[in-house]
């Protein structure tokens, strides 16, 4: 498997050749309307979709890493409960106070904070900003041949809102009582009454800041979503018809709609919970609560389930927000590295749309055990089953796309291929969860944890890595080291599975989530399975998780090193067909020297009877092409 086989180090000859197509980052200012800008205008408050995309990407990766670090702490507590955290134990105590870490031992509150914030940060500050905002911002306008987003200023505002939200989330670690402890789901009443001790400060406490931060994050996502949809609708280049859009653009389009329509109900719920915490309302507090043996003096008359409905109304679409961009990236990488068109492009697009549509009417499958009658549960079980079909279609289409290809295994392709079975495992294990009779047993166990981590961690994160390696040359004009890419890939793949496979076993034993003691207090966790008892499995898992951390070092170094010192490449190093590869790398303000015109579909690889095995979307049709397409249309292919 020759790594750099497909890597053209000489610039290709695109329809619109350009002199300064070297990777020198200072070229990215050949704006048509203005010249040298001060640094802060160019990189801090820029309205250029590429800069904003990169801002999102870097911040997202850092948050991702931060969320990962939180989890590595949790893994210590799970593997060696109640033992002093080595090396950084005292440091943590000084940072977060003895309420969180006492003599190097983490407290239950702190563990819950870590869990909740790990989930929140990974999803809302890690994956969404990277997979949706970063790649979306950088790639989509380029792929549809647009000069920028429709509303550049709103785009900038979106990033700034995200940034503020993120900062608020971080601050919340350092307020009295620590960050939010109610899980990323913030179920009420727990979330409403948390921190409400005698020293309760209505604003400076973890849960309230979590809510405030969320309002910013939601605003950011909404602004982004509006921008994406409008851009894709309005700014497609001449000839870029809907059915010529790269699948990645379709994925982003559906994702944007999910955010646009699913986030607002959560925003309303967040506002209500905020009212509950600061204005003394009781939207989510029923009458007659007795906390710590003392009756709670609130008006009552609220409903805890109301929160769950509004949260999961976002919650489920959100999970497809996490996976769809990943699928989009994988689609691009696979098509490019199998050197053949994606199989069943139409059905892929259709499946993505159906997926988006259905994801709005399945949310109660997270609430099977809240006392749901047979009618409603039958409805939601059915919709949940149906929604798994489009996923099967998408994944199967990817698998079949491999057939007949000439697969080159460069780093992006390695991550993309790994994505398929990993998502497969995660997705398939969603099926038993979808039957609420089976979920009776599996609910809230590590089986659920394993289910979704298989999708988001070795799934989405791998897709993200694939995307980073794939579009890095476009953003910088240089590419990341193939060798270190492999050093990054294989350990990551192995660790991911060592981490998450055993969690299925733990879940089947009945070990539950959010257990501070990792199951040591429980007989059911003492049962042996495959040689180790349920809680003994925590140790290998944790070790793998830390090794995973080490495995990221090559990536981080490779990433930053390559920005300046990576091997220079031409504007189309992967010999890809989509429009972004016709723009100079890095593309200037305004992207294209000559606004491209599109003549053909996105994945015209290995067209018979050509000297190159790829044909750019912007390459005019020859007569032979025309005949070929007509023949194909007649034969009903494409």
């Amino acid at each position, binding site marked *: 498997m020759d790594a750099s086989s497909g890597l053209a180090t000489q610039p290709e000859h695109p329809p619109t050749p350009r002199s300064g197509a070297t990777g020198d980052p200072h070229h990215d200012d050949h704006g*048509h309307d203005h010249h040298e800008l001060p640094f802060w205008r160019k990189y801090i408050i820029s309205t250029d979709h590429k800069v904003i995309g990169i801002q999102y990407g870097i911040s997202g990766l850092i948050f991702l890493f931060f969320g990962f670090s939180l989890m590595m702490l949790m893994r210590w507590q799970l593997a060696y409960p109640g033992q002093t955290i080595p090396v950084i134990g005292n440091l943590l105590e000084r940072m977060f106070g003895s309420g969180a870490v006492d003599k190097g031992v983490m407290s239950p509150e702190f563990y819950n904070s870590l869990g909740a914030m790990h989930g929140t940060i990974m999803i809302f500050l890690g994956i969404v900003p990277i997979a949706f905002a970063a790649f979306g911002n950088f790639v989509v306008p380029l792929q549809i041949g647009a000069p920028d987003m429709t*509303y550049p200023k709103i785009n900038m505002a979106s990033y700034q809102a995200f940034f503020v939200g993120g900062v608020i989330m971080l601050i919340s670690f350092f307020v009295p009582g620590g960050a939010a402890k109610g899980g990323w789901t913030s179920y009420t009443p727990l979330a409403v009454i948390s921190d409400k001790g005698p020293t309760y400060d209505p604003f400076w406490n973890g849960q309230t800041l979590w809510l405030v931060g969320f309002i910013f994050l939601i605003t950011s996502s909404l602004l982004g979503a*509006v921008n994406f949809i409008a851009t894709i609708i309005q700014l497609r280049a001449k000839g870029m018809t809907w059915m010529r859009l790269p699948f990645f653009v379709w994925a982003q389009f559906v994702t944007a709609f999910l955010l646009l329509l699913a986030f607002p109900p959560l925003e309303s719920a967040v506002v209500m919970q905020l009212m509950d915490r600061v204005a003394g309302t009781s939207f989510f507090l029923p009458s007659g609560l007795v906390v710590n043996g003392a009756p709670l003096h609130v*008006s009552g008359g*609220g409903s805890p389930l109301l929160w769950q409905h509004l949260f999961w109304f976002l919650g489920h679409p959100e999970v497809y927000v996490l996976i769809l961009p990943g699928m989009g990236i994988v689609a691009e990488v696979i098509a490019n590295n199998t050197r053949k068109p994606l199989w069943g492009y139409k059905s892929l697009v259709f499946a993505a749309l159906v997926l988006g549509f259905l994801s709005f009417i399945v949310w109660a499958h997270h609430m099977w055990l809240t006392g749901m009658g047979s009618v409603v549960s039958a409805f939601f079980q059915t919709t949940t089953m149906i929604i798994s079909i489009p996923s099967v279609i998408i994944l199967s289409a990817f698998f079949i796309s491999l057939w007949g290809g000439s697969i080159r295994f460069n780093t992006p392709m390695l991550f993309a291929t790994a994505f398929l079975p990993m998502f497969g495992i995660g997705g398939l294990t969603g099926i038993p969860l979808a039957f609420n009779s089976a979920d009776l047993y599996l609910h809230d166990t590590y089986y659920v944890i394993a289910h979704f981590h298989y999708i988001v961690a070795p799934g989405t994160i791998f897709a993200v890595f694939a995307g980073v390696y794939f579009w890095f040359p476009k953003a910088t004009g240089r590419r990341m080291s193939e060798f270190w890419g492999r050093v990054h890939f294989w350990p990551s793949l192995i660790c991911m599975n060592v981490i998450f496979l055993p969690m299925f076993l733990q879940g089947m034993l009945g070990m539950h989530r959010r257990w501070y003691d990792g199951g040591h207090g429980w007989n059911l966790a003492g049962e042996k399975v495959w040689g180790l008892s349920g809680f003994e499995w925590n140790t290998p898992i944790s070790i793998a998780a830390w090794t995973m951390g080490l495995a990221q070092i090559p990536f981080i170094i490779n990433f930053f090193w390559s920005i300046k010192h990576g091997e220079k490449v031409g504007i189309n190093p992967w010999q890809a067909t989509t429009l972004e590869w016709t723009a100079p790398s890095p593309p200037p303000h305004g992207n294209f020297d000559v606004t491209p015109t599109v003549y053909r579909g996105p994945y015209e690889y290995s067209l018979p009877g050509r000297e190159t095995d790829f044909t750019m979307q912007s390459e005019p049709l020859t007569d032979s092409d025309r005949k070929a397409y007509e023949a194909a249309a007649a034969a009903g292919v494409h």
Partner: protein
Amino acid sequence: MEIPYTVTARPDTGLWNAKVGIWLFLASEVMLFGGLFSAYVFLRLDADPGLWPHGLLNVPVGTMNTAILIASSVTVVLAWAALKMRRYRAYWWYMLITILCGVIFLVVKLAYEWPQKFDHFGAFIKPDKLEKYEQYLGNHHLAERGLPPRSEISGHLHNKEALNDPNAKEYEIALDPVNADPANPNMDRPHFLYVPPTDKLAAIEKEDVERISSFGPWHSAYFASYFTITGLHGAHVLGGVLIFIYMWLPVSKRLYRQNPEHLANRVEVAGLFWHFVDLVWIFVFPLFYLL
């Protein structure tokens, strides 16, 4: 670098960018208020029958505000029409009226309606003490009429200091008509004109009171949703007013000179937002004031 279709419509969609954007934004707004309203429905269905507060708001004022918002909606379209017909002066006047309407709406809400609620108190009597206050609650009559019992005695709290004074023994409340004359069936019906508390004083012992609170958001699920939804709506009104002020200031004249169609588009977009705010109020008004 020029972004296409900011003023002229894209041929195949027939729309200019901002038009697409505002409608997408409004779609998300629909979901936002949809969430709040579904919460309202959810809580109201959950509430024990008959105990959902009723007729506590000032209907004439609410009606007036509704009329004002509708009027402002009219003036916004007229302003836009004026621009289309290139009558800047008319546009300027219509815009001014719109802004004034918005401001009046907000003032009425924040300076009149809300404060009125905050110094109106209700005391919830403990279940086992209800009998003692029968003269104010009239639960026997309610029972005869097949209505659920009530536990709240409301009105003007004379001795506010009693609220957080530990050795104060009782609350003095100037009763609302409902409690002043509980046996009278047409007292617990909402009245079109706001009926002030009577001068009939009631002394209520503190330890008989489960909870006493002003008619603020903490009073009940009803007021919680009332304040949250009208608050959020008010925020939208404020936003709209600010945008309109910007479009009304001289800067707009400059844009008008360069490219009147562009200004017209902006006004149309802002107007769409304003109409939506109006539209939300059209549902808020009956749900909270009338039902």
